[in-house]
Structures are given as structure tokens and as C-alpha cells.
């Protein structure tokens, strides 16, 4: 056990569950969470609240956005008649936080929960430590605030225990975390949190989680231990063996272009720039975005057509980029490796013939059989600019949008 800051908190690729979904899983594993009901129409919020202990009630927007509380996504209501109004203020609205991007995310559902009188708040999470290649439990006596702030300001209040690779999480590890609290919670509370820590590890393994976070984990005035807010992220790579949980994936809150790309199996991320980017390879795609930025333009997306790029994937990449009406020019940057430039050039041409491209297009080819590839491009009657190298490509595309 040691207290380290900042070096362990790596999320990996992930499916984010909604709070209510995460809490359902917690219930199945016997971890107490507040009573609550999911509501997707403001008109049903009153009924929901009436069947739940209160006042107060808490209305919580079910969106993937950290710090939603500060953006109006969490409301505490003391009057039954105001519950609907609180739900109304969220459902159908966009919530914008520092984690959502400027467009924010649409709220389609709210969770109406019993309010809980909090005596003490803790933080408890499990994530993968990249460097140690091991799951790691983080516990802090400071709960209810963003853990990054605690890490920066009170690194001594970040306590760590790692389950042993052979034996997994052991109860003594929870005791090591909990018996450092001052004052000590009641024996029952310690037992309950010990149980919760063990169950968090079980859920982590069972569902291929990349993150489980309880913040805050509270002891109520009555002495009960409750997971008040819960986040669960699932490792995308495990989708082949976690089919059931991936059915929980809520498409509604996602960017429509990214959803489309997901369907096509293309790595696409929507950004707020004006130059569309189509690249083979993730590292090169990032580097290409960086180059565009350096020229004074802004990348409109990340798009990796992958190592096996062909006419089909390139067409689909174009299709998605072109649906973004902020795109004023497109840069294709292809480095021919195993996949040769001549093949790629043919793929690009075939794709262009099928599509109507209404913005300037700059193509840069390099690598295996680049001469043959350029020849093929040159001989086509389609309109685009061919750059001789990366620097020229960047310059050309910047000119198109300036």
C-alpha cells in the first residue's frame, strides 16, 4: 500500500454505462444504492417520486458527462410538485460541461432517486494501472469531489491497494484502507465497505471493466453505507464476450457521424474543425491532424481507414466526412506499406467516382510503389490536388480553407 498521485489513472477504450445501468449492476451484486426510477418523460417524474421515499428527491440527467452537477444535470428537490419541473429542465435539453465538447450531450432520461442524508463521503474506484499491468483499487477519505483535484492537492489522501494476481482481492486489503480512517467508522460500516470493495473487484472481472468508480460512497446519518453515484466503463475489446452488457450501449447520446462510422467499422472521431482528414493508421492520422493545426487550419475529424484500406472503406470514410457540413477541404494522407500506393490510388479513384465531392481535395501518397500510385492519380480526370510531400499537402489544404 502506498499513496501515489497521478501515475495510475489511465482509462482505456471503453463503453460507458449510464449511472442507472451501473447501479442496476451494483444491485445485482448486493451493493446498496439509493432507490430510484428511470423516467424519460417529465410527466412521469411526479409519479416516480411519489413511489420513492422523500423529500428530498434527486433528479439526475442520464448522460455521459463528468461534472454534470455544475451544468444543471443534478437537482435536489424538496417539494413533490417541483420534481416534474426539474425533469422538464433536463429532458430534451443539451448539457454542456468541460467533458462534453461545445455541443454538449442531449438528455433523454433522468433518474429520480430518494435523497440521502450524508454523514461521511468517500471515494472508491478500480481501474487498470497501465504501468503495473494490474487492476488497482483507489480509496480516499475525501469523496464527492473530483478525484483529480484530490490527487493534485492531497496526494496523501489517495490510498492504493492492488489485488494479487494469484489470489485476487482479499478482505485484509480493504481493512488496510479502512482502518486508516480517522475517526473510524462503525464496525458495521467497515464490514459493509469491505464487502463492497470485494464486490467491485468481482464486477470488474465479470464485466471486463476498465473503470468502476463510486463517488461518493457515503455513510448516511442512519449509519448505512450507500454507493451514491456510480460510473462503470467497459473495455471495448471485450465486446465479443460481453454481448449482454454491450446491448446496454445507449446510442441516443452519441454523435450521429461517429455512430455511422462505428457501423462501418471505421475509427472516426468528430471534431469542430474545417479540414476533413482521411488517413491509414491511427498514429499517422493524429500526426496529420497536428500538421493541419500547425498550418493554421483546424482538423474536422480523426479518421483511420486502417491497415486494410480498400475502395469500400475509403468510400465510406468520404461519406462520413462529407456529411459534416463544416468541412471545407479534405486531406487524404496515405502511407503505402504492405498495402501499396497503386492499390490505394485505385481505391481512392473508385471511391471518388461513386461520390460527389463538393470541397477541394488534397491527396498525399508516399511509400511502397508511390510512383505508380501518383501515375494513376495523374491520369484520372477527376479533380484533386496531389501533394509531393507532407509539407506541401499541409500548405495546399490550408490554402483551400483560408
Amino acid at each position, binding site marked *: 500500500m502506498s499513496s501515489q498521485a497521478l501515475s495510475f489513472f489511465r482509462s482505456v*477504450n471503453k463503453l460507458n454505462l449510464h449511472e442507472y445501468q451501473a447501479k442496476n449492476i451494483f444491485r445485482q451484486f448486493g451493493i446498496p444504492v439509493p432507490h430510484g426510477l428511470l423516467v424519460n418523460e417529465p410527466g412521469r417524474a411526479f409519479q416516480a417520486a411519489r413511489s420513492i421515499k422523500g423529500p428530498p428527491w434527486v433528479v439526475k440527467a442520464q448522460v455521459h458527462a463528468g461534472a454534470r452537477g455544475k451544468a444543471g444535470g443534478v437537482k435536489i428537490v424538496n417539494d413533490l410538485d417541483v420534481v416534474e419541473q426539474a425533469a422538464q429542465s433536463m429532458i430534451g435539453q443539451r448539457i454542456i460541461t468541460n467533458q462534453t465538447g461545445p455541443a454538449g450531450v442531449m438528455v433523454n432520461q433522468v433518474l429520480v432517486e430518494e435523497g440521502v442524508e450524508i454523514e461521511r463521503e468517500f471515494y472508491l474506484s478500480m481501474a487498470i494501472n497501465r*504501468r503495473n499491468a*494490474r487492476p488497482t483499487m483507489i480509496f480516499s477519505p475525501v469523496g464527492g469531489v473530483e478525484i*483529480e483535484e484530490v490527487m493534485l492537492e492531497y496526494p496523501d489522501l489517495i490510498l492504493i491497494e492492488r489485488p494479487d494476481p494469484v489470489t485476487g482481492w482479499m478482505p485484509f486489503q480493504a481493512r488496510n484502507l479502512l482502518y486508516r480512517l480517522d475517526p473510524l467508522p462503525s464496525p458495521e460500516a467497515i464490514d459493509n465497505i469491505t464487502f463492497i470493495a470485494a464486490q467491485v473487484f468481482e464486477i470488474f472481472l465479470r464485466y471486463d471493466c476498465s473503470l468502476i468508480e463510486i463517488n461518493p460512497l457515503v455513510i448516511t446519518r442512519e449509519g448505512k453505507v450507500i454507493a451514491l453515484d456510480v460510473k462503470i466503463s467497459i473495455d*471495448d475489446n471485450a465486446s465479443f464476450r460481453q454481448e449482454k452488457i454491450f446491448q446496454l450501449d445507449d446510442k441516443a447520446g452519441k454523435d450521429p457521424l461517429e455512430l455511422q462510422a462505428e457501423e462501418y467499422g471505421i475509427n472516426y472521431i468528430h471534431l469542430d474543425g474545417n479540414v476533413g482528414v482521411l488517413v491509414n493508421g491511427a*498514429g*499517422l492520422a*493524429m500526426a496529420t491532424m497536428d500538421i493541419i493545426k500547425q498550418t493554421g487550419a483546424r482538423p474536422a475529424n480523426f479518421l483511420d481507414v486502417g491497415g486494410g484500406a480498400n475502395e469500400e472503406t475509403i468510400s465510406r470514410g468520404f461519406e462520413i466526412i462529407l456529411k459534416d457540413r463544416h468541412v471545407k477541404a479534405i486531406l487524404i494522407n496515405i502511407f503505402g*506499406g504492405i498495402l501499396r500506393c497503386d492499390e490505394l490510388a485505385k481505391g481512392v479513384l473508385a471511391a471518388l467516382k461513386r461520390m460527389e465531392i463538393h470541397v477541394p481535395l488534397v491527396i498525399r501518397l508516399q511509400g511502397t510503389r508511390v510512383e505508380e500510385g501518383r501515375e494513376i492519380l495523374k491520369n484520372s480526370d477527376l479533380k484533386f490536388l496531389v501533394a509531393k510531400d*507532407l509539407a506541401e499537402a499541409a500548405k495546399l489544404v490550408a490554402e483551400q480553407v483560408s
Partner: protein
Amino acid sequence: MSILVDENSRVVIQGISGRRGSFHTKQMLGYNTNIAAGVRPGKGGQRVEGVPVFNTMVEAVQEEGVNVSCIFVPPPFAADSIMEAASAGVKLIICITEGIPVLDMVNVVSFVRSRGAILIGPNCPGIISPGKTMVGIMPRRMHRQGDIGVISRSGTLTYEVVYQLTEVGLGQSTCIGIGGDPIIGISFIDVLAMFKEDNETRGILLIGEIGGKEEEYAAKYIKEEFNKPVLAFIAGRTAPTNKRMGHAGAIISRGMGKAEDKIKTLQDAGITVAQDLCSIGKKALEVMGHG
């Protein structure tokens, strides 16, 4: 000299009969890589591209004395294949497969270490010692034998860099893609330590990207223990937070893993960081000299 692989590497391809496995077997054979065996359960006794196929790694080791494995097995079975290789006594395992669940890798890394083996990847392009051997999926024609070591978390970005190195006349001793996943077998530091001992490696190109702290650890190591010139490049200065940029490991999360932080840490350690990918070859020439 070179590190990890050379003319004496006897390579086995796990998943040799699959589409990617057989294609890249052919590519590697074209580079004169000594591919001594393939493994595919149920296809023992067959041949792929002339290479004898065995049902198990134990057989491949016994019959052909293979000492390096290259894995093209799909994600659900890849962890099992890596462990099979380590269990059969293979000491260098290169896993190309992308998409292995992180919890599988948690087990794999522990298992491989306990068997005294080195794992490169997963989700990596492999390793090449130009003029000697290539184990992975790197393109054949752009590398040139020389004395620059290249370490990268990326694929095509590395090809771009190597292409420019070769263009400016800087050949390579060994190029290694350590992989774009959050949990990988071999780290920047592990590879740097090997390059440090390699007499024929004069300088290093280190190609990082957003996510994790690998580059920061490398910066510390280089500052404290590494004695050869290093040029670094970090991709992803324009990457948004909380989004996975293609690679499973390339994600800025909770404000951590940003390109600017990595660049600053590297620079604070006295390492030159190329700002402009377009002219990274020339920059390398500046940092390394003509040799």
C-alpha cells in the same frame, strides 16, 4: 549487431493459415526471414507458403527449434496463443493482433514474465533489423541497414518516419513497434536499455503519442541512464480528451496523457522533440549527425 532479432531468429507464425497470417508469412519470407514453422491447431502436417504447420507450439519448438514467435491469432484466442508460446519455451513473442481484452493482457503479462519471455505488442507492427530479418507486418522496401534505433507506439507513422530517415541517409539498426494498447509487453525503457548495450546503434528515434505515461518514464530514464542522442516525436497534440484515437491506448483521460505534457517532460529531460513531422528526417540528421 541489432537487438532482439537477427539472422539467427527462427520464427514461428501462430495463426499461419488465416488470411493475415498467410499473407504476412509470404511478406516475411520475401524479406528472407527464417520462418521455420507455423502453428494452427487442426492443420498440423499441412504447409502454408512452404512452411510446415504444427498443431501446437510444443511441437513447433521440438521439431523446428523455433525461438521467436509472431502471432496473428484473432483477439478471443490471442491471449491463449501468447501463453502457449511462452509455455513452450519461446523467449521472444511478437503479437500483431489488435483488440485483445485488457484483462486478458493483465494475465498474459504476468504469465509471460514468469516464464522469462519477452512480449512485443500486442497491437504492434512488429520488429525489423534491416538487412537481417523482419518479424511482423512492416513494409519491406523502405528500411535501410544502419545505426539508428527506432521505437514507436504506432504503425504507419513509424513507416513515415523511417521513410524520411532512409531518405536523408540514416539507416536503421532495429525498428520496434511496441504497440498501441494500454497494456503491452515491452516498454520504451526496456527497448532503450537494449539499444544502450547495442554497439551498432548510435542514436534513437522515439515516437510516442497521447495516453499513458510511457514517454514520461522514458524521459526520466534517458535523462538518468541513457547515453546516446535521442530525437522524440509525439503525435496527438490536437487530440480531444476522453476519445480513443484509434489505438486502444491513445486516450487523454482525466486530463492525463496529453501530448503537450509529454513534450514538455521530454524537453525538460533535455531531449529534442521534433515539432514538425514533415521534416523529421532532417531533424534527425541534425540531432544524430551523418554518422
